[in-house]
């Protein structure tokens, strides 16, 4: 593991956690409270795990192929992001108030992480020419 990828993972984790936490807090306070279904500590830990795993995978791909690492990783990352969107949509929540609004709450949380990670990776990881 190189320092660049570790810093990328930690930075993406910190920033996406901060943004997601703020969003979840305001959503729970002002719209519908889903803090029982998705507590804050879960948002923080999942964001950090995703950021560190993504950084690790990116490092692994770069290790194998420096030239094509960006295109391979970005394609894989985009595919995973799209597939992950299905999770909150298909989630069956019984016995809570307004379950139909859960995707409205959960979907931006996935997007925040993806957008922040991709934005930071283009800053941290230089193109191989």
């Amino acid at each position, binding site marked *: *593991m*190189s*320092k660049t*990828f*570790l810093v990328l*993972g*930690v930075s993406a*984790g910190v920033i996406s956690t901060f943004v997601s936490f703020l969003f979840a807090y305001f959503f729970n306070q002002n719209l519908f409270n889903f803090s*029982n*279904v998705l*507590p804050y*500590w*879960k948002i*923080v*830990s*999942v964001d*950090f*795990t995703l950021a*560190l*795993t993504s*950084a*690790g995978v990116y490092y692994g791909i770069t290790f194998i192929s420096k030239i094509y690492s960006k295109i391979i990783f970005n394609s894989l990352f985009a595919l995973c992001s799209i597939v992950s969107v299905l999770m909150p949509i298909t989630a069956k*929540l*019984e*016995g*809570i*108030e307004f379950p139909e609004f859960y995707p409205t709450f959960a979907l931006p949380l996935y997007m925040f992480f993806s957008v922040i990670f991709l934005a930071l990776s283009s800053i941290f990881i230089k193109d191989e020419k």
Partner: protein
Amino acid sequence: MKKIVISILYFGLLGLSTSIALMPSDHFIVSEKGHTIDFKSKDPSGTFDQIKGEFDFDENNVSSSKFYFKIDVNSINTGNGMMNKKSQTEEWFDAKKYPDIKFKSTKVEKKENELLITGELTIKGITKTYTIPTSYSKSGDKISLKGKFKVNRIEFKVGKKSEAVPDFMNISFVVPADKK
């Protein structure tokens, strides 16, 4: 050497965040089957067949627990079809306007082996504070709540005061739930 330190740091952080992310929260969802909500009085008696709900329950920190239940008024079953229909009219539960009976906890205490769940009980749009003594039994990822309490139907404007139907209804419940 530097790479080894960075790798250890990386896997340490990843292990920590993954173990927290995968940690089960003590969040329970009421099972679709196996629950009973009975009401008994001199006349009438019956059950509500449908309840939905969720709760956070930590045996070691009960004060942080939160309970939420919703009973479908239309699922009332008195064993008499005519009476079931009558109970949904405006005079009784007014099921069209108020399809659910709701309970939301505001305070949970532990007294010996029993929980005292205080919360807001809403029937027919009227909310009153009730404390419900509840016992529980846990087995793996399953929990069952059991309890009895009395409800004054007049407080909630469910029917009118009469000699035929007593004011107080004895409610008993068994609510199984699964950890999510």
